[in-house]
Every structure is written in structure tokens, then in C-alpha cells.
């Protein structure tokens, strides 16, 4: 249940898999993303509502052949240049995209977690997303005759999330903004949670979301594992790192060098201890 991060990635993430690393600004599983880069995974279908700089890094490193998403940017800064380069110029490999809205993606995970093949929502109507995205259809209410939008369930091969804590049985505890992580984990065939720390006993916290051990395939301790994103109660968001990414990522060479130094050279030591 509790494994080293490299072992967790090796056993759970395979070439060609559909992989979701979820996190909504908060608790982004960056350390796990870097480990995927280090292990040289290829042809992944990456899934995430808000792919940010760790997805830019995975894409720039050539791990992905497809991205399923609803908003791809560097929050508060601007665009993702590796993502742009892959889409606009096919570098380092072409990137296929499947593009949704947040409401659609959230409902796709909900359907996935619920074991039904599709979800119903009011969404997309009148937008140009409907043309290029084949996974948006309509469904008619059998009671009112009203036409609504349908999106298919998302069931990743593996979902990876980062959380504050887990106990030794593998119960995972997160709090603060917890986004769509519960649904993403429950929708997946396999799941890995990286955590700030493994503890003997999970002290209850208001606003907590617990992923029971039966919903989690493996847990890996990765203190600081969501840096430069943040872990509520542990460390703050490193906004400078997001700002700095803009310049690094604009240039293929600068990016390649950054990747060599900061990812491929080996895991970074935890940048922060407990206590924000």
C-alpha cells in the first residue's frame, strides 16, 4: 500500500495509459508528474481539467500523445508554451486534443466514478466546442422531452492525486480546495496518492475529504510533492516559480535544459517542511 514514489509510478503508469493527475491550483501532484518524465513514459493520454505547468512539462518532455482538458494555462500568468508548441508545431511530438468545458469535465468524472457511461448536463449549447469535440452529444429527457447535453464517462487507467496525509492503512486525507480529486480517483481503474506525510492516525480536520483505502491502489510519501503548487496547512503557492516558468517554457532549448537540471537529474529534495 505505502510504496516509494518511483515504484508507485513504475507499477501503476504504463506507456499508452490514460492518466489523470488532478488538482485544482491546490495539491497538484507535481512530484509524481516529474517521476513520470524521469521514467520516460510515452504515448500517454493525459487528462486534467486545468493542465498547468506540470502538464506543460510532461508534454514538452514528449510523454503525451493526447490531452483531454478544459482549461490549459499558467494560472495568473498566461499561456502554456510547451502545450502551444505541441499543438501549433507538433514539438516534440504532435498532441491530439479533446476539449471540454469545466462543467463537462467535472460531470465526465462524476459519471466515471458512478459506473454509468454518460452524464447529463446543461452545457456547450451554441458553442463551437460541439463541432470538433466528438464526445459532446445530446440526450432527450424521457419525462419532459427536453433536449440536454450528454458527455461520456471518463475512466482513466490511473489517477494520481496529491494530499496532505495518509495513514498506514492507506486512507488518504485532504482538505482546503479539493476540486474533483475524489471523483477522479473513484473513476480510475488504479490510483496513486502522493502525500505530504504518512501518519499513524488521521486527526479529523474540518472540510476534509477522505479517500478510503479501498479507493486507493497505492500511497507514496512525497513531502513538498505539489510544489510549486501548494498544500494547505503545509506550504504556500510559489507564485514566483509560476512566473518564472513563462520565460523558461517559451524557448525549446531553455526548456530542455531546465528539464535536464530540474527533473531528469533526479528527484528534488523537499523544498519545505511542515508548517505554513
Amino acid at each position, binding site marked *: 500500500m505505502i510504496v516509494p514514489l518511483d515504484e508507485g509510478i513504475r507499477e501503476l503508469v504504463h506507456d499508452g495509459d490514460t492518466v489523470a493527475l488532478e488538482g485544482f491550483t491546490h495539491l497538484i501532484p507535481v512530484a509524481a508528474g516529474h517521476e513520470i518524465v524521469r521514467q520516460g513514459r510515452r504515448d500517454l493520454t493525459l487528462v486534467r481539467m486545468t493542465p498547468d505547468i506540470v502538464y506543460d512539462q510532461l508534454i514538452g518532455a514528449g510523454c503525451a500523445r493526447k490531452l483531454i482538458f478544459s482549461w490549459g494555462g499558467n494560472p495568473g500568468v498566461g499561456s502554456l508554451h510547451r502545450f502551444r508548441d505541441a499543438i501549433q508545431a507538433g514539438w516534440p511530438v504532435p498532441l491530439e486534443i479533446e476539449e471540454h468545458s469545466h462543467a463537462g469535465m*467535472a460531470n465526465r468524472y462524476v459519471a466515471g466514478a458512478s459506473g454509468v457511461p454518460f452524464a447529463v448536463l446543461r452545457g456547450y*449549447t*451554441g458553442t463551437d466546442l460541439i*463541432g470538433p469535440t466528438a464526445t459532446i452529444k445530446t440526450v432527450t429527457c424521457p419525462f419532459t422531452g427536453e433536449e440536454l447535453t450528454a458527455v461520456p464517462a471518463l475512466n482513466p487507467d490511473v489517477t494520481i492525486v496529491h494530499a496532505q496525509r495518509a495513514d498506514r492503512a492507506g486512507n488518504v486525507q485532504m482538505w482546503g*480546495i479539493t476540486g474533483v480529486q475524489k471523483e477522479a480517483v473513484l473513476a480510475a481503474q488504479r490510483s496513486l496518492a502522493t502525500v505530504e506525510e504518512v501518519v499513524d492516525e488521521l486527526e479529523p480536520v474540518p472540510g476534509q475529504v477522505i479517500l478510503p483505502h479501498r479507493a486507493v491502489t497505492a500511497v507514496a510519501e512525497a513531502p513538498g510533492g505539489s510544489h510549486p503548487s501548494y498544500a494547505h496547512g503545509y506550504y504556500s503557492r510559489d*507564485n514566483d516559480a509560476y512566473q518564472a516558468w513563462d520565460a523558461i517554457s517559451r524557448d525549446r532549448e531553455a526548456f530542455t535544459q531546465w528539464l535536464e537540471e530540474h527533473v531528469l537529474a533526479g528527484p528534488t529534495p523537499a523544498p519545505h517542511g511542515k508548517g505554513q
Partner: protein
Amino acid sequence: MTAVTWSSDEIMTVTAARALTDDMACFVGIGLPSTAANLARRTHAPGLWLIYESGTLGAKPDTLPLSIGDGILAETADTVVSVPEIFNYWLQPGRIDTGFLGAAQIDRYANINTTVIGDYADPKVRLPGAGGAPEIAASCRDVIVIVRQSTRAFVESVDFVTSVGYGSGAGDRERLGLRGHGPKRVITDLGVLEPDPETAELTLVSVHPGVDVADARAATGWELAVAPEVATTPEPTSEELAVLRSLTGASPA
């Protein structure tokens, strides 16, 4: 001019803030909308209820969040819910009075593009994409758009409809079954546009002090409709500017 000086971004933000009232629930996008909403909450609308798509309901940040998922939003919220819940239980049923959106491109019917410049399959510039905007534009009772006015942004026809304004004109929202009323105001660094009650075409109803109608026309990529009487936007007060600058950390213009 007056003794108080301000930038065009500042009057845009203050004007947007004034569109919000104390009893509203407001679905806030990050950037200019968030600044305006927090300014309103600090000045005339302390009861303004801010919702961010990260799941925070009733957030009361004391500093401006840099992203829609900042810790300060969770710490100060009435409650934090999951992302599916924000969209399904709060936005979709029409519980939100005002949705605040930005835009990369906007057309005369207030349709918004935040997806691509150029062809979707072979884009000139790939933008971040839809996020929560399509459903915010569809389901909030009203929508306010904040965008800097230029011929690059105000285009004859958007390259991609990410979020529907009035489609191809009056009646289109009803035909599409969208339940919110659509954009009631577009606030720019030059002035304010509102949909014509008959045609739904965006019409210049106000210019900021020091801006001519001709400036607004020149910054618009279509033949801009202009109201018979164009008002002059009331200037920001010194209190508004003081609060705004304390939020953004900006020094006086």
C-alpha cells in the same frame, strides 16, 4: 480632468465593481473580474457573495487571489464544495445572479472566444480554452464582460465561439434554450457597451472621461453602434481608488 488621476484599467475596474450590488451572488473569473468583485465587496457591496469555480462559496479574501484556487479563498469561504458541486448544484440551476467573464475576442453580439486565434485544427495562437465560461455565460442570470477594447479583441466575427452571448442576434438565446439573460454589459478601458433592447447588438452607452466616441469606434473591428446619448462614465472616487490600489498593490497612476 480632476485632482484625482487614474488609469484606464482603474476606471474599467471601478465601473465593473459598481455594476455589482450588495445582495448579489457573483461567479468570479480570475484577473480583472476578481479585482472588480473584491473592490465592490470592500466598498458599496459588503454582502456580495463571491463564488469561484474551485469550489469556494462566499469567499472573503483579504488579499487578491492570484488564481481561482488560492488558499485564501478556502480559508475565508462560508464553505468549500467540490468542483462538480459548484457547477451542478450552484451554477447550473440558475442560483447565480451575475457571471463575470473576460475575453480574448468578442463580437457585436457579445459572443466570446478564449479558445484559439485562427483555425481550430491549425491555430495561429492556441489560448487556454473554455474553463467554466460556456456554462457561466449560459446559466448566470446576467453576465458582465470585462475586456480591454482594441480591434484585435473586438472583431467582426470571433474565430471560435467559446461562450455564447446573443448568438447571431435577438432571440437566439431563447432558441438555444439558454436560461440566463446573457451579457447585460461589456465594460472596457474606453467605455461601456450594452446590448440594444431590440437587436441585442452591443451599443456604446458610455465613454470614460477623456475618451471620445471616435476612440471607441477606432478600437472596434465592426461598425460600432452608438447610443443616441452617450453618457460619460462617472469617475472613480478617491475612496474607490484607494481601496483598489490597496488590493492590487499599485501606486497611484
